[in-house]
């Protein structure tokens, strides 16, 4: 007995920020080059009153147009943009969706490695007989953390939510996953103020970093070069470990779907792994880097583009934490 993914839906907020819009605010920057290199044209951001949970509700409702919501018995909610310190956002989601009260629900705080963690966990929960239908939700609104003058992060990150339904099945379609953590890099991608360690500081000073970006300790900070180095050094060995753990070789992989961080970096990793373009998914043109939502969005898009033959897909998430998780799934149908 195993489990499989039977459906994925995603939503972006309505406010579309194009490169042309950003160019009005940052006239000295070459957004045409940014688009061809980083591979992002539009990103979407929530308005002031809208939250990750609001997006999550929309994504789940879209999913429930196709699947019966009364069968859900477990919610895994991945976010770094919770509604409150407490209570748990997943509990509020249960009520907003009017799901059965016999539903387990909890949040977990991960970023770009969150979706692959969630799949592995959902599979384990189902295989051990604790649930039959797991609703895995990713919802992130980094736009609320990003300093208005932080050009790079405003150009890279977009808000989004996704909902995935994983169900018990005789087909064992979710394979083995590999995990990793290096907390020594906790400050490479961080919002320093506002939680328990440091209060939000109304007098936090702005500082310049990276390629002429502005942020403060109340806002998101990313050490791009270090995160990049971490990633390119990690990936070759990690993909090898994933193949070994699943008892397969590169020839068995029909598609590599990595966290869609940045097209240029993904392409570079693709070449290091010597994978042909057609086997390696890169598409973040519309939406940008949506943190834990990039992999489910990519998986959905990929599934719609293929015929119904069985596919073996490697999924790899990496980033904030620093944290990483990757594994292999099988896919026989559109999601």
């Amino acid at each position, binding site marked *: 007995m195993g489990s499989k993914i039977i459906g994925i839906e995603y939503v972006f907020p309505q406010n579309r920020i194009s490169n042309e819009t950003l160019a009005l605010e940052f006239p000295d920057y070459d957004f045409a080059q940014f688009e061809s*290199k980083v591979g992002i044209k539009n990103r979407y951001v929530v308005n002031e009153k809208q939250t990750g949970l609001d997006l999550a509700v929309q994504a789940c409702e879209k999913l429930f147009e196709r699947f019966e919501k009364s069968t859900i018995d477990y919610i895994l909610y991945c976010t770094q943009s919770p509604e409150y310190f407490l209570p748990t956002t997943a509990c509020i989601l249960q009520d907003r969706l009017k799901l059965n009260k016999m539903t387990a629900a909890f949040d977990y705080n991960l970023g770009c490695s969150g979706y692959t963690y969630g799949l592995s966990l959902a599979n384990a929960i189902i295989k051990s007989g604790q649930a039959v239908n797991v609703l895995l939700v990713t919802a992130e609104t980094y736009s609320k953390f990003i300093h208005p003058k932080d050009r790079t992060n405003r150009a890279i990150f977009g808000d989004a939510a996704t909902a995935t339904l994983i169900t018990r099945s005789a087909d064992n379609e979710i394979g083995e996953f590999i995990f990793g953590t290096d907390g020594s890099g906790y400050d490479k991608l961080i919002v320093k103020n506002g939680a328990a360690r440091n209060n939000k500081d109304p007098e936090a000073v702005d500082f310049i970093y990276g390629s002429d970006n502005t942020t403060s300790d109340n806002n998101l900070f990313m050490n791009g070069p270090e995160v*990049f*180095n971490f990633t390119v050094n990690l990936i070759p060995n990690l993909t090898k470990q994933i193949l070994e753990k699943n008892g397969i070789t590169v020839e068995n992989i029909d598609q590599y779907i990595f966290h869609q961080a940045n097209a240029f970096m993904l392409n*570079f990793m693709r*070449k290091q792994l010597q994978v042909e373009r057609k086997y390696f998914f890169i598409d973040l043109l519309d939406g940008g880097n949506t943190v834990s939502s990039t992999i489910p969005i990519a998986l959905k898009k990929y599934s719609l583009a293929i015929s119904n033959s069985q596919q073996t897909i490697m999924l790899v998430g990496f980033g904030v934490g620093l944290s990483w998780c990757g594994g292999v799934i099988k896919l026989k149908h559109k999601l």
Partner: protein
Amino acid sequence: MTKQDFLEKLKTDLEIDSHLSLDTEFKQIEEWDSLTVLMLLAFIENNFHINLKAKDIEVLTDFNSLIKVIGEEKFN
């Protein structure tokens, strides 16, 4: 690898369309930016197992000076 192979491989891996020669200055390359420097560092690490930092590249001007840092003996 030869110096010419090095330039060719760089062009492919870093997706540089402009012509490169050993005395091409980095600042003349249209695609050159902070992201290119990161790719270059990873490229050197992967191909020569030398761990350079962005600041090591900042003081260099062209591919001749880069090859000196990597080590002339690594090329044939």
